[in-house]
C-alpha cells in the first residue's frame, strides 16, 4: 500500500545535509567547529528557562523588582545577567485575575532566548502559530489549561524585535517560599502563557 510521508526529509537526510554543509564551511575557513560546540553548549546547558524562572520568582518576592520589570524589562532582566541574542529588547507581561497573556510568533520563531532558551518545536510549528492568535482558548485546552469563561486573553505576536516574557500568577499556598523554591515551580510553558503555575500539591 502507498504510505503517507511525514516531513520531507528523513532524519538521516538532514544529518547528511548539515554535515556536508559544515564540512564545506570548515574547509573554507568560514566556520570553526569548536565555536559551534560552544554555541550548542551555551543553549544546551547555560541559557534556558531557568533564567526566566529566576526572574519570575524575584518579581513574585520583590515588589520593587516587579515594578522595574513592568516598566523596563530589558534593564531589570539585564541586571540579573541575562542579556544577549534574542533578548535585546524585552517586555514582561503580567498575568492576573483580569487577563491571561499568551505569546506567539506567527511569522517565524521569535522567542526570548535570554530568559527561555531555544523555543520548543511546537512554538515554531504551524499548528501553534496559526491558532494561537485566533483560537487561544482552543490551544490552551490542548495544553490542559482551562481558563474561566470570559476571562480576557491577550495574545502577543512577536513581529518586531521585542520579546515577551509572561509573568504567571503566583499560586496560593506558596506564602513564605524563597525565590529558589519558587523558581522550581515556574515552568517554561507558564512563561509563554500555555500553562499556569500549579499550586504546590496539585497534579503537575
Amino acid at each position, binding site marked *: 500500500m502507498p504510505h503517507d510521508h511525514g516531513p520531507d526529509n528523513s532524519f538521516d537526510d538532514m*544529518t547528511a545535509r548539515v554535515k556536508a554543509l559544515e564540512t564545506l564551511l570548515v574547509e573554507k575557513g568560514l566556520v570553526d567547529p569548536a565555536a559551534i560546540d560552544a554555541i550548542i553548549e551555551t543553549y544546551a546547558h547555560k541559557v534556558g528557562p531557568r533564567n526566566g524562572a529566576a526572574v519570575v520568582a524575584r518579581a513574585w518576592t520583590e515588589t520593587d523588582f516587579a515594578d522595574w520589570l513592568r516598566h523596563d524589562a530589558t534593564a531589570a532582566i539585564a541586571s540579573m545577567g541575562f542579556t544577549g541574542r534574542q533578548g535585546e529588547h524585552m517586555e514582561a507581561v503580567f498575568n492576573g485575575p483580569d487577563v491571561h497573556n499568551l505569546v506567539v510568533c506567527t511569522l517565524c520563531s521569535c522567542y526570548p532566548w535570554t530568559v527561555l532558551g531555544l523555543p520548543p518545536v511546537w512554538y515554531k510549528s504551524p499548528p501553534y502559530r496559526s491558532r494561537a492568535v485566533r483560537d487561544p482558548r482552543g490551544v490552551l485546552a490542548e495544553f490542559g489549561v482551562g481558563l474561566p469563561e470570559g476571562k480576557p486573553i491577550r495574545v502577543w*505576536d512577536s513581529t518586531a524585535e521585542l520579546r515577551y516574557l509572561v509573568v504567571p500568577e503566583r499560586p496560593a499556598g506558596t506564602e513564605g517560599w524563597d525565590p529558589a523554591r519558587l523558581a522550581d515551580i515556574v515552568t517554561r510553558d507558564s512563561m509563554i502563557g500555555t500553562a499556569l503555575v500549579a499550586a504546590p500539591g496539585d497534579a503537575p
Partner: protein
Amino acid sequence: MNGPHDLGGRMGFGPVVPEPEDVIFHGDWEARALGLTLACGALGHWTIDESRHARESLPPATYLSASYYEIWIRALEALLERHGEVSAAERASGKLEAPGLRPERCLRPERVRSVLAAGGPTDRRVPVPAAFAVGDRVRTRNLQPEGHTRLPGFAREKTGVVEAVRGGFVYPDTNAHGAGEMPCWLYTVAFRGPDLWGADTDPAL
C-alpha cells in the same frame, strides 16, 4: 510577502503537540544546524531580516513540511549561495571550488560567549517625532509587498489602538533587501479579536 510563513489564522494544521521542557534538540543535526546558522551569521553577509526573508521564501510545500531547523538549513544554503560563499555545485559535489570570502570573520570559540551575550540591538534614533501617541486609534495599511514585511496578513487594513510607543527601530521591510535600516517609530497596537477574525469570535480576545 504573502508567503507560507504568514500563518496567523490559517487552518488545517491539526492540534498542537506539547513537549517536555528538557527536550532541546532532536538529534545531533539540529544542534549543528543551530550552531552553523549562528556562526555563519557572524560572517556579516546578511542581516537577521534578510535571513528571515530567506526562510519565508522557501517553496511553500517545503516550508510547511519541514521542521524549523530544516527551514534554517535550507535558508542558510540559499544565503551562502547568494553571498558567494558556497555554491550549489559545491553542495552537490561536496568539493571546494573557491576559497571562503571572509575567513577573517570566522567566529572563534573564545568569542562565542561575548557575541551571544552582546546580541544585536535594533533600536535606532529616528529624526522625526512619533506620528501617534498611546490611545490613538490607527488603521494598518494594505501592504502586500513581494518582499519582506512584518505586518501579518491577518492584521492588514484593521483598526486598533496604540498601546505603547517603543522608540525608533530598524525597518525590516528595507533592511531585509539591503536597502538600509530606515529607522521608524515602532508601536504596539492592540486589536480586538472580533475586528480581526469576524463577528463570531470570542469577544474576550
